[in-house]
């Protein structure tokens, strides 16, 4: 960072003795003046609140302290305790990532498309993974509710960090008080944990956590701004204030043996896409770091073969420039750095006002087939544990006519297998119970119609 020149410092000092210190984080006088004004307003408010309580406050010394904290790089948002996110004011706290304007722009653009939809489900379910302050679903809700009153939003925010959850809870409560509509929930879960892995950590894998909390398994829209910075990019491309003050947990995915730097940066995306498929999300919006990562994510989404359309959005997706669709028909929309990847399938196309949609049956078939494509959904993995029951996984796609049934059964079988593994993994924890699960049934088509059968243990 270049040194700030003496003449600039003198100029700043002449305007206000507090200004020179703020030049370091702000770099120019106008920005420093703005920050100083905001800090002063903050100090005034604090003083007013103290007075109301009968306390007094030395405003000058508080201001001096805050200015020096800011001068040493502490983010203004942590000092003031809030950040603006679209129309909303979101509470911030150190230990939880500060919401970014770019994220708000993606969310606003998503809702801009949805608010014109002819028909949205009366109960629209929104799942936000890695929710942090809760800013993403809160802005989504605010934007949708100001445009439509025919939709009831059910929101679920997920994070692994208790600090984030506490803050998100606070933000959600405030939002609900000022607009008491719909439902909001938060759960603690780990979205990268394999549900079949040994669970020695204290956060449950998402699926298990959903089951435990009695939350619905299906969600219409999945959004996520996951940690996406690779270790080497962390050191070379983030600003000092980010590295010095924001939680690394929110920025850099965990390292797993034998993965490359890039793979580590991308770690969340395969998991998120897999969850999107499992919850049968019709719209998926994932934030990314740059165009390269966007393209890798789009490619993965494409390989899943369940989506009708994929787009890459830049920082200003509302600006109407569209690059011609490149590889695999993925168009790049807007201006600025690439910032998110949007995928849709089935009814999601109509909600977004996109032309491409596939018939319900094709959509179901794709969804069904895709279970063969992902690690945990791979039928060949069944039976790796000697205690596991062998379910009859169809290996060839069923005929057109039997599809819905086969699809349904495959889903049930899969659930049942998951639960079984979960029970196994819980044996040692004292949580294990042995009542039969409803998924231990399956259906067959007979000449009398549908018949329910109990699975043999």
């Amino acid at each position, binding site marked *: *960072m*270049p040194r700030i020149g003496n003449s600039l410092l003198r100029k700043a000092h002449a*305007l*206000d003795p507090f200004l020179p210190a703020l030049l370091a984080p*702000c*770099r*120019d*006088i*106008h*920005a420093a*003046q*703005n*920050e*100083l*004004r*905001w800090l*002063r*307003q*903050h100090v*005034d*408010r*604090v003083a007013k*609140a*103290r007075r109301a309580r009968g306390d007094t406050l030395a405003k000058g010394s508080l201001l001096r302290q805050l200015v020096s904290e800011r001068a040493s790089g502490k983010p203004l*948002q942590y000092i*003031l*305790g*809030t950040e*603006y996110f679209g*129309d*909303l*004011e979101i509470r911030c706290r150190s230990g939880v990532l*500060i919401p*970014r*304007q*770019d*994220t*708000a722009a993606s969310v606003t653009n998503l809702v801009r498309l949805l608010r014109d939809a002819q028909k949205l489900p009366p109960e629209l379910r929104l799942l936000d993974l890695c929710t942090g302050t809760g800013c993403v679903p809160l802005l989504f809700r605010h934007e949708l509710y100001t445009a439509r009153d025919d939709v009831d939003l059910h929101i679920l925010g997920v994070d692994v960090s208790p600090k984030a959850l506490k803050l998100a809870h606070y933000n959600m409560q*405030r939002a609900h*008080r*000022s607009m008491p509509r719909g439902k909001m929930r938060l759960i603690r879960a780990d979205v990268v944990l394999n549900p079949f892995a040994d669970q020695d950590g204290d956060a449950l894998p998402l699926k298990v956590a959903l089951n435990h909390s009695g939350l619905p398994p299906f969600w219409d829209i999945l959004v996520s701004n996951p*940690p*996406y*910075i690779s270790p080497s*990019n962390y050191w070379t*491309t*983030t*600003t000092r*204030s*980010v590295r010095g003050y*924001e939680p690394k947990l*929110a*920025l850099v995915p965990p390292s797993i043996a034998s993965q490359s730097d890039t793979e580590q940066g991308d770690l969340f995306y395969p998991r998120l896409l897999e969850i999107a498929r499992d919850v049968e999300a019709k719209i998926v919006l994932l934030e990314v*770091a*740059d165009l390269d990562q966007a393209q890798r994510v789009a490619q993965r989404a494409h390989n899943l073969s369940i989506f009708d359309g994929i787009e890459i959005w830049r*920082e*200003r997706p509302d600006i109407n420039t569209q690059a011609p669709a490149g590889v695999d028909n993925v168009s790049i929309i807007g201006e*600025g*750095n690439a*910032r998110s990847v949007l995928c849709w399938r089935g009814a999601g196309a109509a909600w977004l006002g996109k032309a491409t949609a596939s018939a319900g049956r094709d959509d179901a078939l794709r969804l069904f087939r895709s279970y063969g494509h992902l690690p945990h959904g791979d039928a060949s993995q069944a039976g790796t544990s000697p205690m596991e029951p062998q379910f009859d996984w169809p290996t060839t796609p069923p005929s057109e006519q039997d599809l819905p049934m086969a699809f349904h059964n495959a889903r049930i079988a899969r659930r049942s297998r998951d639960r079984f593994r979960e029970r196994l993994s819980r044996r040692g924890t004292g949580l294990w119970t042995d009542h039969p699960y409803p998924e231990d049934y399956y259906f067959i088509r007979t000449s009398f119609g549908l018949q329910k059968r109990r699975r043999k243990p």
Partner: protein
Amino acid sequence: MSILPRLRLLPSHASTPFNILRAFTTTPPLPAKSLPPRPTLHDADLIEKFLHGSGPGGQKINKTSSAVQLKHIPTGIVVKYQDTRSRTVNRKMARKILQEKIEEMELGEGARTRIKQREVSGKKRSAEKKRRRKYRKLGEVEGEREREEGIEYGGGELDGINEVEGAKEVESVGDGAKKEGEK
């Protein structure tokens, strides 16, 4: 980078005593009701930029500036607004100021801003200042006020230089575009 350009901007705003004096001697003050309608802005005529310098963006930087720059293509007027921490409020303010500037350009002394200036005097002028100050805090008033700390809607002092006119930077194209936050 310099702060001089901001001073250069002042003349376009006729708040000098001379103007006011003349206004009072020549034109009877009009009631606010007869103000001309605001000119409508067409999106196609506007180029809006969020100024944050170049860089990777996203999670990699936590910037505090939500500066908005708005250019009106037909007239070449450029307005920049960055006084609040809220990008949405800055956008709205930039639009409002741009409307005023276009009108002043088109109508001269008949513009709403000029008429209003003639209306306000003495005490009223300080009320006008307050009004402007209020805009700045607009949007910072979202949510409840009961919280004690961590929120910044203060009845804050302004540090003189930013007051009223300094709040915005207006310039015509080709007038040496200012760069914000040179790195």
